[in-house]
């Protein structure tokens, strides 16, 4: 078969385990060259959104405190979030949202090649399990899709990445129809709260620690809305994680 990302021929390199169990791993679908082109986020410079680089025009002096070490600072965007009264997310992202990740997302999400969930499933689950332990997470809550998008796509792209105790705590409000990725930053920031609490989950949220899971963190708008929805329902603390930032 061919690599699902670059379409170049992929020599079968299945492990003995996958041959025995018939179970596929990410490396059975995507060639090692393509895999190596994803950029893992290793050195975080803002502790609240988990970014590892600043937008081009911003420099370090816009950061909150010059004296603190990288990873303990708050970037300009997150300062704005806090000024708007949003709580901290302590977001973590595994990979940079670069060209290679865009290509992946376009195939996985927009074309809808569900097989590609295997590429990052293991890693995302591991990261979530680690956070559950570290932060004593009670519930793992995925960012939901609108009903019509879910019907079209046939899957929620973050679903395969979930691990631990999963709670479908959020649903989308009816009128929210626009795909975030089709909007620019300004439009995204102007959008209205798209989420509400799922019926009957209120008691599960009160005083609990929650981990939100999304595929991409772009402006933070989606996750901040989701978090404030949970805080309103009485959540004690909300963390978030995404595959890409």
């Amino acid at each position, binding site marked *: 078969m061919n690599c699902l990302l670059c379409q170049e021929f992929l020599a079968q390199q299945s492990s003995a385990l996958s041959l025995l169990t018939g179970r596929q791993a990410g490396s059975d679908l995507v060639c090692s060259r393509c895999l190596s082109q994803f950029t893992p986020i290793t050195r975080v410079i803002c502790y609240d959104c988990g970014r590892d680089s600043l937008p081009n025009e911003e420099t370090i002096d816009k950061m909150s405190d010059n004296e603190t070490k990288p990873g303990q600072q708050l970037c300009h965007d997150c300062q704005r979030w806090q000024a708007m009264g949003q709580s901290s997310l302590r977001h973590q992202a595994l990979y940079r949202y670069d060209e290679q990740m865009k290509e992946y997302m376009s195939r996985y999400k927009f074309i809808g*090649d569900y097989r590609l969930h295997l590429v990052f499933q293991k890693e995302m689950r591991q990261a979530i399990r680690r956070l559950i332990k570290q932060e004593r997470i009670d519930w793992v809550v995925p960012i939901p899709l609108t009903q019509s998008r879910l019907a079209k796509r*046939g899957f929620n792209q973050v679903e*395969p990445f979930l691990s631990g105790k999963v709670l479908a705590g959020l649903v989308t409000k009816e009128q929210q129809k626009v795909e975030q990725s089709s909007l620019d930053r300004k439009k995204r920031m102007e959008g209205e709260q798209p989420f509400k609490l799922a019926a009957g989950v209120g008691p599960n949220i009160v005083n609990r620690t929650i981990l939100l899971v999304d595929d991409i963190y772009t402006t933070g708008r989606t996750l901040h809305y989701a978090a404030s929805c949970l805080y309103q329902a009485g959540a004690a603390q909300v963390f978030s994680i995404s595959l890409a930032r």
Partner: protein
Amino acid sequence: MDDTLFYGRLVTWPQSEPIDREHYQLLSAFVGNRCQRCGQDDRASLPNGGFYCLACLNLGRVASHDVLLTLAEPNDFPAYGKMPWTGQLTASQGRVSQELIDSYQKGEDRLVWAVTGAGKTEMLFPLLEHALQGRGRVAVLSPRVDVVLELAPRLRAAFGIEIQVLHGHQEEPYQYGQFVLATTHQALRFRQAFDLIVIDEVDAFPYRGDPVLNYAVNQARKQGGVLVYLTATPTPDLLRQVRQGKLRQSYLPRRFHQGLLPQIQTRKVGNWRKRCPQRLKVVVLAWQQEQIPFLVFVPQVKDLANVDKCLQKVLKIMGGTVHAGDPDRAAKVLRLRSGDWRYLVTTTILERGVTLPGLEVVILGADDPVFSTAALVQIAGRVARAKEKPTGLVLALIEEPTLVLRRAQQQIDQLNQLAEEMGGQS
């Protein structure tokens, strides 16, 4: 929605979205397990209990929760007058051209076996004009995007009408039109649309032996629509159909400048991946001296850099490397054309479509299995295409002679013999 976008098209539509079921023709996306766009049973499952087709995934997903929409092709085109093209066909081109028009009128398919450099594109013009004048919808399909892009301006100039160019990498949305020029895969998006489909280089990857594309072309033609296959190296399957009388055939063994196809010369060299062969250095130095542009074919992408390095050591002229996944491929070919670069080291991707007067080639590792008989004949066809210089060198550097290479040489001999026999006709 604009109805014209559905004429003779197959549009994937999620069942969950509202649609006027009276207005459109609705087809199930799958019958049993078979995708109704590409006819294959090659599926992956979705967590909603459904599944989707893998065989035609690159054209957008067809899932079990989708339907396919279409509207019957109405041939709603303005009347077409005369084509602006006024070029002259040689006698033998003219003969084949007339055979094609006769076939079209009778509703028969036809295979045109034309040696590379025979001028087969021009030979199609009278047929295409004839079909356009009869309000037929026509499609010219080619397996390679490079060829499509090269043909587009030529066809626009020749016919003076808007031509819909369709391929996988384009940004512009689809529009309804009478004349479609597309990569072969795009045929999957049509249904009973075309009165005439011309399939260029039917032997080439990825049409050959690809059941998806056979299915696609048959779906895309109208009932009673006509197929014309063009090839320089017919596949055994097509030749069998000709022998069985199922397919009519036209020959065009002579190149338009009346010259013959250059024979492939072979030289044994040692392990060329280990040591850059002396023979290669001698040949490229001679080309540099005589200012002849050249291509060096190598079997694999990973050979490109090494071979280029070895050339750069002995040469003073500029050149570069290309392969299928190279985003700058078109630009690099342009640099070669403009004379800015004098050579390219390439994989088989440039075996077709690239025409450059006076070009010569060397095939390094021509005994590698990636070079099929058809590929080798095509590569030889790159050479000696100019009237001023109807000969040229095609050099195969090999470790061991192979049957595939021998067959290619036989096919070239056969074509040249045929050309000699039919010599009086052209």
